[in-house]
């Protein structure tokens, strides 16, 4: 059944008609054209479709759009404030924490979430936390370095 839902995407309120069985990933990518959210497995295994749903990371390919009605959604675009990159984005660039860049929006966003909620995270904990997203180019070491370097900007 079709219905209308409201999503607040990176601070902008958007109304969209969806089917009950539609995935949040598809609504974001195909209907709202938020293409920074990627898909590489369509079944919750690769993490490329990670977004923040009301501030919490989820894999949007395994969330029904209907469940997200009225929610705030943050994607990597939402990290940019007043045209300025966030510290984690800058750290990704400086540390070479990206190669092909396909996993980068998801990783950048997720690392931003980690630092915002756990600015004291240790390297060992971080490795575990990061293990929900795949980087086939193998930039894990550089991602970890970027997070450790950006840490200071997230401490209260």
């Amino acid at each position, binding site marked *: 059944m079709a219905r209308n839902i409201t999503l607040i995407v990176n601070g902008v309120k958007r109304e969209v008609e969806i089917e009950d069985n539609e995935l949040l990933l598809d609504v974001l990518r195909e209907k709202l054209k938020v293409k920074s959210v*990627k898909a590489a*497995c369509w079944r919750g295994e690769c993490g490329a479709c990670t977004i923040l749903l009301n501030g919490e990371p989820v894999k949007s390919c395994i969330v029904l759009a209907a469940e997200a009605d009225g929610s705030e959604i943050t994607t990597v675009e939402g990290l940019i404030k007043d045209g300025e990159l966030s510290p984690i984005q800058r750290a990704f660039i400086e540390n070479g924490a*990206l190669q092909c860049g396909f*996993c980068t929006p998801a990783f950048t966003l997720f690392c931003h979430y980690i630092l915002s909620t756990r600015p004291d995270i240790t390297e060992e904990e971080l490795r*575990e936390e*990061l293990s929900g997203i*795949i980087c*086939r180019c*193998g930039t894990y070491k*550089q991602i970890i370095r970027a997070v450790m370097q950006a840490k200071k900007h997230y401490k209260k």
Partner: protein
Amino acid sequence: MAHRYIGKRLPQLDSFHKVTGIATFTHDLELPGMLYAKLVTSIYPHAKVSKVDASEALKVPGVVTIATGRDFPYRLGIYVGDRDVLAMDKVNWVGHPVAAVVAETLEAAEKAVDLVEVEYEPLEPVFDPLKALEPDAPLIHPKLGEYRRAPAFTPVPGTNIANRFVLKRGNVEKGFEESNVVIEKEFKLPFVSHAYLETQSTIAQYKMDGTVEVWTSAQSPFAVRYLMALSLGIPVGNITVNVPFVGGGFGGKAGLAWEPLTALLSKKAGYRPVKLELSRKEQFTSGAVRDGVYAKVKAGAKKDGRLMALKGRLIFDAGGYGDYTVNVSRAAGYSFGEVYDLPNVYCESLAVYTNKVPTTAMRGFGHPEAVWAVERTVEMVSSELGVDPLEIRLKNVVKPGVSVTVTGEKLRKDAGNPSDCLDAVAKAINWGGPVRKPGEPWRYIGKGISVFCKGPAQPPNAASSAIIKLNEDGTVDLMVGTGNFGQGTVTSLTQIVAEELGIPVEKVKFKFIRGTDSMAYTWQTVGSRGLYTDGNAVLEALEDVKKQIKEVASQVLRVKPEDLEIRDEKVYLKGRPWESIPLSELVMGYTYPNGNSIGGPIIGRGKYISPLNTYLDPETGQGIPTIFYTYGATGCIVEVDALTGKVRVLKAVQAFDLGKAINPLMVECQIDGGFIMGMSVALFEEITFDERGWVQNPNFSAYWVAHARDIPDEMMEISIENPQSDGPYGARGIGEVVMLGVPPAIANAVYHAIGVNINNMPMHPENIWKEIKKQKPELLEELKRKLMEIRELKVER
């Protein structure tokens, strides 16, 4: 002279696009009026397609057209044209595309796919490449003799042999006679997936005027254009191929893929653009993966460790088609043991069809397979003789300027030096020194090393070119065809431009959508060739630019062009730094105060082709196969949990003689990324098939690739810089060699940890545990004892 940009750790020039999400991949692209295609694929590994009935499927609202193999009677392929666009009369594996549905929406296409009725007449399948070699094996490509093929390839019609290559130097049998010890071992490598994150994705529009435009997630736009033209009979100039950002390639997006199908579907659907994007499952079952290999290697050595002879038989399981794998197997053949100075070597390398998923190039191109077998063999020779693994390698590796390679090429003095790599790695892992004590008594720690090399596998005439355009404000457009999918080659090329022209690197611009209409030609982005070949073309184009600038400036300043130098965005008179003209006043032509003008827009062009490469002798494989060799060594310290069979790499070190690290940050990323991929393949990855030929694990839960938690605690990257005189600033390529040595280094370390030889990949817990049981049951007894002791201790307490 100190460099301003060469040797600097600059981030990838497209980093901003990537961290902000504005980098657009083919995955993200939509065109006005675009339709969606979905594949109907075979459920039999080997069968005649007797009937395809699409009548029900065509009734689904939104379906525009449905195509079958008979609609598109073309043969595709890069080295052997053994592929059909859609199965013409026969399917060769489970997943072979039989028909394609085109619809207004993806949902409609998916729905219709389920309604296409295909009737099959099953044929006897063959899954094991050794069985496929038997005289009465079912023939997978009965028309093999009719296929178009490139000159270097020799399919054997009437068999399943897609290519046979022989390398022969000296006399191996004599070498074995002269040896004090001879060993012979077997090795196996499974099919693995490139697992690039962005699945294969293509949009094509066949236009009514006969031109074709393609947007595709591919490595090599020019190869796509050329091979499409060749197989479909369209003039090259009628085709435009655009490549936006690419979410990983690793060789799997080289050559030609789904572009012909998508273009033909567009034509059939009334010239509207059509998008075909593979699901992850389709990527495992219908897209091409890395070959599996069965190898037998025999080696002979003197008491002191001097290798006297090396003999190999490599059987590449090419799967249902092997248009690219024929060259993978050939490259493995001509590079067999090439890091060593071998008086006698023989290798027969075959690519063999089976009824499994098709195969293609992957990072390393046949070398990882051969290096696995050779480096494991050398390790076993070393333990047999009691000669230290480092020593046996140092003793036998080629010496620049002295040694002759396995293909009979006398190595140049500036060829790079594997000994330097070995020494560096040995030092970094404290080779010969003690290992740390493991945390638990059932864990064992060991060190391992390997040595290897690779050069670009390319036809002798593979060319590159570069165009450098100067803009009004003195910014520069760099136009090269080489790919930009994470390796950092283009970033390094912009550093070269900035260095040579004396301008800030930010002023060198590169457009991220690479198109055959807007970029200079390069054959392909493969084989670690980009920096070297396109780099040389860029250097020539820069000379051209400088010459043109100086010509105009010399007229203005009334001096000879030789007396001028270009730096800091100005042209100076040597020795008189106060006399200069800003570049911006010259790049579009110089205008005198009275309005007279000279010069004109400056565009430089450069090219590169190797004058040295040759075809290889068809009988012996002798000749000059490649433009340079990048030597490397891998060292690692691993921990084996003998209770579970789990292997963990604690420390990873890799050293490469890359001549010059133009951008050490990019080099670091390649070395670490290569280690992680090599480790992932070594420890986890294997595409498994059931007895009906179905892939059992076409997803990332069942097919595990390395995650953040799997990486070594410590990773070290070492660049050795013995310059290659004809490389840009002395540089050699690095993109593939970074994963070659990882699996054998890990396996060698496992051997030194627990005394068990692992010769079949992957080294996942079950395999390790089985091998312990087979080769060293006493280890398990010892563990049992240890565990009892611990329990008793606990009980006492």
